[in-house]
């Protein structure tokens, strides 16, 4: 049976070790990091995917080439990207990232489809309440020529239950973005980007 003195000595040594490490492990800290440099923590969708897909997809669209030669600053409407995965992903964030990069290129114009109700509400208010020289003219909204849509698909594979110390999960995403001519109904371009990430988790923990 361990003597009391041994226990006491052990406690003093442990407390000293903790003090000497500067209590770093017990201190809260906040660090600002670049989102693209953050290490992925899971195989699932994260901010690095959002940033990468926005960049890669917009570059792919503009190098297609889009807009077609002869068309000067065509008007695009973002009708959203469909979520066909098993995770609740903010699809608006993905389409916003892509359309922001397209807008920044200066080659396209974008109508604000998601705010149409707000636009009409404000126009109605101005018509009823604002002075003639300050209110906007009604019925002057521009119509879009192209529509941006797409889908995000996920395929997840997990190792079957077996006797092992860890299990692997592979998550594959495929993002498809297409631009459709609203007049002819033709798909003028379709781009696909994908990524596969593997994560390994221990099956035994403390």
């Amino acid at each position, binding site marked *: 049976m361990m*003597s*009391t*003195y041994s226990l*006491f000595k052990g406690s003093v040594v442990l407390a000293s070790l903790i003090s000497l490490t500067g209590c770093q492990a017990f201190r809260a800290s906040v660090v600002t990091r670049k989102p693209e440099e953050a290490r992925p923590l899971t195989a699932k969708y994260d901010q690095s995917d959002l940033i990468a897909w926005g960049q890669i997809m917009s570059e792919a669209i503009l190098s297609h080439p889009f807009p077609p030669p002869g068309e000067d600053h065509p008007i695009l409407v973002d009708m959203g990207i*469909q*979520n*066909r*995965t*098993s*995770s*609740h992903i903010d*699809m608006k964030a993905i389409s916003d990232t892509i359309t922001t990069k397209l807008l920044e290129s200066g080659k396209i114009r974008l109508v604000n489809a998601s705010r149409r109700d707000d636009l009409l509400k404000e126009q109605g208010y101005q018509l009823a309440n604002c002075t003639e020289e300050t209110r906007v003219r009604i019925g002057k909204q521009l119509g879009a020529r192209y529509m941006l849509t797409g889908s995000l698909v996920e395929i*997840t594979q997990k190792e*079957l*239950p077996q006797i092992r110390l860890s299990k692997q999960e592979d998550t594959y995403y495929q993002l498809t973005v297409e631009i459709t001519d609203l007049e002819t109904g033709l798909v003028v371009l379709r781009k696909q980007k994908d990524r596969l990430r593997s994560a390994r*988790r*221990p*099956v*035994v*923990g*403390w």
Partner: protein
Amino acid sequence: MPTATTLRHEPSLKRGRVFFPAGAARCIVRHTAPWLVAGCSLLVIGCATQRLEHARSCFATGQFAAAQAELAKLPKGTADRVLFLMERGTAAQAAGDYHGSINDWQEAARLIEALDYLSVSRSSSSLVINDRVQAFRGAPFERTLLRTFTAKSYLALGLWEDAAVEARNVVASLQNLNGFPDDAYSRYVAAFCFEMIGAYDDAALEYRAAASLVPYLRISDRTGAIAPAVTNPPDSSFASVWPAPTNAAELVCFVLIGCASGDNEACACANHWGPDPFAEIYAENRYLGRSYCLANTLALRTATEARLTAIKAAKTAARVLLKDAIARQVSKEDQLLGSLAWLLLFSLETPDTRRWETLPQFLQVARVPCPADLKGYTIVFRGAGGQAIEQRVVTSPLTRHGRTIFSLCRAL
């Protein structure tokens, strides 16, 4: 009484060490250790259980907001957290707080995923105390119903894509069942979610899978229509085209009856619903149709427990042997302490009866034609003999998607 001389010559004492009477330490351990162990065990089990039971009582009497409030504070550890979230989510959905139910159930799903590993500390503790120290992750059918109910909350909010996300999780959870029971109701809900986003192939797959699990019913894989099984050739009540004529609307009502808090099916029959209740839907004083039972949670639980019986029995036997061995070992050192240890260890030997008790017992679906401008309907809950047990008017939720109107209703 030890003197200074005898203590100085005590083998365990050497020069320079802190003086401490040799027998005092043993005395302190003898008197406090059992209480410390008992106290810790009671802390693990006791306080959280009381709040949970009170919340369940509130729920059973229809006080859903009170049940939610009782569970506002989650337990600190992870042992019962999932169970609290499941129960709180049910109370939230019953109270019409669909966002609250979604938050709770998604947190529960996230925790279940995070707790999917063999915990060395909890497993070894469970061999000495009982299985209640293990983190509760729910039975397989409870984990599936978690996703199913989350999907219904999304449907109630008109968030069809998010409902489809949950539907995919339902389908994933029903793969590789490993002998655990399948669930026709969850498959039907998943199929409906796929239908709402236009994924008709996926919907048809799940309708067919649900139909194969309920041989007493026929479910159309193209329209999701439900009718009693007939031995004659095709029932003309099924639509032959997809979608149905545009001037017709369809009400899809997910009806939940009873509470799954009984110990077994026989016990459940003794309650006021009887063995086979159903609901009739009326609108503008016209009979629209009735609900059909796709799953019974007590039957799912019975099948799950049958699957786990051998494993649980082996674990209990191993735990009893270990406790006996520990008590015997302690007895060799000190007879009184050994007796105390035996008493304590075996008083903690209680089965793990944690379950999602606010689940409904009968999971039913009514898919009926209705007026296109439906603003509310009357639902009459009947027992197996056709006697009316409860009646209410439902005006919410009534979420429209094209010509389909989604609703859900629960009777306790």
